[in-house]
């Protein structure tokens, strides 16, 4: 029994796929080196990530997949689901063996799983567009700390870069401890070591907030309260659209408890 291990990047996984073909091999599993150990008695082969090899596999994928589904495998990979690697690998085996329009074969459990998983990731990315709430700080920056289920921050950069082209903003992933910062020109990845915000709720320390921030949050809370029609109350529907796990980041939901 043989398993391949990679460094938990998408490039690494693609390199593994390349090596499988190169060595005419079919590993039992492909595992991340950073995750927990899943096998006891196996021959472990560490695959070094090689950008050129990954690029070749990626180009091959792009040639085969149709327009809308070009990013299918990358999105599915971002879900970090257990065992997603082998599903991608088996998918690629079939894809490279010349199966046409493979991505629409929803009767196949691998294809369906990858499609549904990538949908989940896209949905989470959509939620990041919905529920990010910026707080304005004294140095005229807009900060938001949030904790997405999947690692989707890279997917939403473009949206915020276009939308808020004239303000400095920082979106920080509290779980994965990295963020992206936009300085009105370019976006870059940052890691904050000395945190001036609550790592649980993403709230910036009071003394650093802009003077107008409290006012706008108050206005927003009261707008939110007054736009509700009492006679139509339907809390279940609200939770369905806006899951509880996001409530601690939303100013309109925080005022209620205090």
């Amino acid at each position, binding site marked *: 029994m043989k398993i391949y291990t990679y460094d938990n990047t998408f490039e690494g996984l693609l390199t593994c796929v390349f090596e499988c073909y190169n060595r005419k091999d079919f590993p039992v599993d492909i595992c991340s080196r950073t995750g927990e150990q899943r096998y006891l008695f196996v021959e472990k082969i560490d695959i070094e990530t090689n950008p050129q090899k990954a690029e070749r596999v990626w180009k091959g994928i792009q040639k085969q997949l149709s327009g809308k589904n070009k990013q299918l495998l990358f999105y599915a990979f971002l879900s970090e689901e257990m065992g997603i690697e082998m599903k991608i690998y088996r998918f690629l085996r079939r894809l490279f063996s010349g199966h046409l329009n493979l991505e629409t074969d*929803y009767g196949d*459990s691998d294809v369906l799983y990858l499609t549904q998983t990538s949908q989940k990731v896209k949905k989470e990315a959509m939620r990041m567009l919905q529920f990010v709430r910026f707080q304005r700080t004294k140095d005229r920056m807009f900060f938001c700390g949030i904790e997405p289920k999947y690692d989707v921050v890279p997917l939403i950069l473009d949206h915020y870069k276009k939308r808020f082209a004239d303000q400095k903003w920082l979106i920080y992933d509290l779980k994965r401890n990295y963020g992206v910062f936009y300085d009105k020109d370019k976006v870059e990845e940052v890691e904050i070591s000395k945190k001036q915000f609550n790592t649980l709720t993403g709230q910036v320390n009071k003394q650093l907030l802009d003077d107008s921030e409290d006012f706008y949050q108050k*206005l927003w809370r009261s707008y*939110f309260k007054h736009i509700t029609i009492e006679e139509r109350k339907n809390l279940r529907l609200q939770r369905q659209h806006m899951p509880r796990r996001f409530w601690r980041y939303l100013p309109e939901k925080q005022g209620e408890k205090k």
Partner: protein
Amino acid sequence: MSKDKVHEKLKILSDAAKYDVSCASSGSNRANTGKGIGTGVACGICHSFTEDGRCVSLFKILMTNNCIYDCAYCVNRRTNDRPRATFTAQEIVDLTIGFYRRNYIEGLFLSSGVIKSPDYTMERMVQVAKKLRNEENYNGYIHLKAIPGASRELINEAGIWADRLSVNMEIPTELHLKKLAPEKNYPDIISPMGQIRDSILMAKEERQKYRKAPRFAPAGQSTQLIVGASPETDRQIILLSSGLYKKQNLKRVYFSGYLPVNSYDQRLPAINRPPLVRENRLYQSDWLMRFYHFKAEEILSEDQPFLDLDVDPKLGFALRNMHLFPVDINRADYEMILRIPGVGVQSAQKIILARKHRRLNSLHLKNIGIVMKRAKYFITCNELPAHRIDWEPQRLKHKLLCEMDSKYKKSLDTQLKLFTDFRQALPPLH
């Protein structure tokens, strides 16, 4: 501006604006030009959800809740004794930008009561949109309400700055509009709708010729009908909305279940809860027309003025037309697959694509996401049928109803209960 004053106004005017149901921010993909603020996203983004489960996508606000009209169904009618307030254009602009920069909202939805005259009101609303676009370099979504009776020039200008325009019909027929809102007249509502439709079509044509031609309300126009304030039948409402989609080229028709806001008015029906189930069934029919290739006449036949509140209109259609079923999943065309109860648009598209690779059986269908609990009575697939009896429509309906755990059943039933306060006459024996 004094902060408390703005806060007070916001409370009054958002309270007054909440009865407008439209809150879509879709249909526009305006780009952010010249490093300004804001973009349009074609699919729309909902930023929050209130306790009634409705989305908050746009900052929905009235410019003023003063009004010269006295419409029976409206909370802001002249004769109601309510706190009144008026925002200045600058205040609305500041609030919109302040909220937008914090990603609370997707744009502005500005409506208003009518002050002085329709023209005067419309002009001030247009001014807000213009200010946002020109002074703040704002490219986010703007939805403006066109005030019935406003001049052509003003509506034209509104279309240039806004992404979507809407004229609310409120009452579906002229007869009842006269009764409930004697100061409004029907042609005043229909004519701006026609004007907006023509301008949108013209601007689209222009844009095909010249890439830089100005847009006119790129996200189209919509309207709203109040359901249950006047005695129109569901069939009338559905036919009307289908006509609006076809003739006026509307993007959306919204239905608003009538809330008894002015219960003292004798012209209005006495109800204690909004007709939420009826509203939901109307929306379902609306969806059938817009996404499921249904015709208005198919949803309700002539001898059937109202929608069945127990089952959704698609299941209702299937039960009335049992001769069309069962549908063979592996052969039938897309239109027919869409008509199977329990199959949505996405699943139908998946079925069409997936069956090219292999013949589908019920396990595949279940995994794809079809509600087999309903669909199984209406399909055949690549295996033996699950049941052998020919169902009579009435019996099948009863069976499906028993199995369904409808979310509406208890909480939102508008029917009065006979025995809710039923107390046992004798004390229990044990």
